[in-house]
């Protein structure tokens, strides 16, 4: 049983549920106490020890019956209710068939279906090994049915009925037989579906090359597949929690600031004015940010993760305003700052405002727009963060504006997804921008981005 549970945990992990070693041990302990006789208790014990997030319940509910189910409902025998004569008739009629349809009808009438090994073999033949998503189980099951001859079943069954009628079996007995066959057919399909589901889950668990969580954080953002981006989005949540606690701790342990005379006197009234507790004026340590993001297609994921991190960490930032530029610049703060924001839909909003235009990027022009309309967003406390590759499409670079922004704000930081080697090649103006920035950080993957955001929050 322990083996089965360990396999199940492996399946859960492959489905994206995080299960630690300690939790696996807890699960085994819990089962040791609860026993396995009562399935409901068994399930509840496993779930309480292994799944710690509500969104993972679904994966658990899907996998549990696959690993601990009976393998589907059993088949029943059609011979049980028959008189001896009728049994002989049926056997005779069946022996006239041949090939796989005979095997299939044998299963459906005798009540002795394929064994687990046979089912496994058939699933392999149907190509189950090629798939790793539960959505594809249906397709494999259908292929298995074809291979077993389900396609001819209706036709052959009608023939069989005719034959039995000719041989003199009563209508009543035939109806009964058909009823049993139909029930068995459904049961067999269910068995196959469960077998396929299990094999797919195991296959997925066996796959070693899947990058998960922290490994993915080091994969370049422009090389990610859709699925990996989805996985990273989950990872971002964890990251946010991590960054938040670091920022909060740093703020608490940071320099406490100047002595607060008024506060101290007030706090020490209860000790008769003896200054036992000292009060300090807290220095404002939360940074105020202005983000200017390139939203051209090449920057999609960098900007997405940057925005997610920034706005999930809003409570650690005193003020954050964000602007998107492409061939024009618009403020997008309101799209992202709602508490329950769906980043994906926020991005399609942005896309609507700034629709795709080939070779459209105009960084210099966008900076001019920022200068004309939104300069008030930048004051001596503001950290200006430019997120972009500095590719300007051979438009005027307007370095003077960037230099001015750097002077007006507390500091100016540039996050670029391109490595130094690419700066200055083609239409890249990075070489001209870089010297006027306080810092240029290369963010190729989520890990680098996270450390960049952490630095921003630290304010140094």
């Amino acid at each position: 049983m322990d083996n089965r549970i360990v396999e199940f945990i492996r399946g859960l992990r492959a489905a994206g549920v995080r299960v630690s070693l300690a939790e696996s041990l807890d699960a085994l302990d819990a089962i040791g106490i609860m026993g396995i006789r009562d399935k409901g208790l068994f399930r509840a014990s496993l779930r309480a020890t292994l799944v710690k997030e509500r969104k993972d319940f679904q994966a658990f509910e899907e996998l549990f019956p696959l690993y601990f189910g009976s393998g589907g409902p059993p088949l029943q025998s059609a011979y049980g209710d028959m008189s001896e004569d009728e049994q002989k008739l049926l056997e005779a009629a069946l022996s006239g068939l041949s090939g796989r349809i005979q095997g299939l009808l044998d299963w459906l009438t005798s009540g002795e279906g394929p064994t687990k090994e046979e089912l496994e073999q058939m699933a392999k033949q149907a190509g189950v090994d090629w798939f790793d998503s539960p959505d594809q189980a249906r397709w494999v099951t259908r292929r298995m049915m074809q291979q077993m001859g389900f396609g001819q079943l209706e036709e052959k069954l009608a023939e069989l009925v005719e034959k039995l009628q000719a041989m003199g079996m009563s209508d009543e007995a035939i109806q009964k037989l058909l009823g049993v066959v139909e029930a068995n057919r459904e049961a067999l399909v269910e068995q196959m579906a469960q077998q396929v589901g299990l094999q797919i889950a195991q296959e997925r668990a066996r796959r070693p090359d899947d990058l998960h969580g922290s490994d993915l954080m080091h994969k370049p953002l422009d090389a990610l597949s859709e699925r990996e981006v989805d996985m990273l989005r989950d990872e971002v949540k964890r990251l946010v929690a991590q960054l938040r606690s670091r920022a909060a701790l740093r703020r608490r342990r940071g320099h406490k600031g100047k002595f607060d005379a008024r506060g101290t006197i007030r706090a020490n009234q209860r000790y008769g004015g003896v200054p036992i507790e000292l009060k300090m004026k807290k220095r404002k340590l939360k940074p105020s940010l202005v983000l200017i993001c390139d939203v051209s297609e090449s920057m999609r994921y960098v900007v997405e993760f940057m925005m997610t991190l920034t706005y999930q960490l809003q409570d650690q930032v005193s003020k954050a305003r964000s602007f998107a530029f492409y061939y024009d610049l618009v403020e997008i703060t309101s799209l992202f700052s709602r508490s329950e924001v769906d980043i994906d839909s926020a991005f399609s909003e942005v896309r609507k405002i700034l629709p795709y235009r080939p070779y459209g990027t105009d960084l210099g022009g966008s900076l001019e727009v920022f200068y004309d309309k939104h300069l008030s967003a930048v004051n001596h406390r503001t950290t200006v963060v430019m997120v972009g590759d500095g590719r300007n499409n051979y438009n005027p670079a307007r370095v003077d504006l960037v230099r001015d922004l750097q002077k007006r704000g507390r500091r100016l930081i540039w996050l670029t997804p391109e490595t130094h080697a690419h700066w200055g090649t083609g239409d890249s103006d990075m070489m001209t921008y870089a010297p006027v920035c306080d810092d240029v950080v290369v963010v190729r993957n989520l890990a680098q981005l996270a450390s960049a955001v952490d630095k921003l929050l630290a304010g140094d």
Partner: protein
Amino acid sequence: MFKDIGDVREKLGREDYIASEEISTVVYLAQSLNKPILAEGPAGVGKTELAKTWAKATGMPLIRLQCYEGLDESKALYEWEYAKQMLYTQLLRDTLRNVLGETQSLAEAAGRLAEEEDVFFSDNFLLPRPLLQAMMSDEPVVLLIDEIDRADVEFEAFLLEILSDFQVTIPELGTVKAKHQPMVLLTSNNTRELSEALKRRCLYLYVDYPRLDEELEIVRLKVPELSSDMAKQAVATVQQLRNMDLRKVPSISETLDWARALVALNADSIDEKTMRNTLTVLLKYESDVTKAQRRLGGADDGPYQYRR
């Protein structure tokens, strides 16, 4: 202490708490594995109630720590009672003079005073807060840490330390180890993600709104004065409200409040007038009330169908 799962359900039931199979399993596991429970779910589904009932059913005292933003160790664990220390110093001035009278130099006096320091940092002046109380208790207790999601992240980390080995070091006194490991229940309304480490240490319990029949049973148990016919109508209405798009859907506690209000008003059916008068018990936002009134009171469906 519970003997087995059936015992959990029965004892909790005796205290008017209807525990689902899941709840009773988790409670029993928590007791046998000595692990804290983390209960999540919407507000007002009886997470806090579970801890209270747990304590009552087993006869253990309940110690509650309510979390809020800015909660720190001195409010959760222990604090020195400065004022009392000051008062004692004042009152003991004469004795102190006797002790220090014979000393010749300032250094000697300070040394002598240091020897007596233990007096001022002893159990007498220690103000144990809920966590320390739970650890110092002579009998096992149920420790309820309510709404942990409201506390700061640092506090969560600190709590983790306590929950892992149930001992704490007070610099002036030494290490205090729990005499009995308390049964711990943490609740969270999910306003923020809790840390992985905390979740890993706990058994996880998700408490959702009850199904119609479960809620009906709860109402019957807690407000037996309400006629069963009325209870059915009331619960059906509440379940209907939960399916609507409201700012705050009514929870079990609000259903119970409403049921009590219906009893107090002596209502014999849920008609438009009763609805209008009592809807504010269920719904806490003006916009929700108008929305519900329009939906429930407008057409011929909803609670209207119950009108005689």
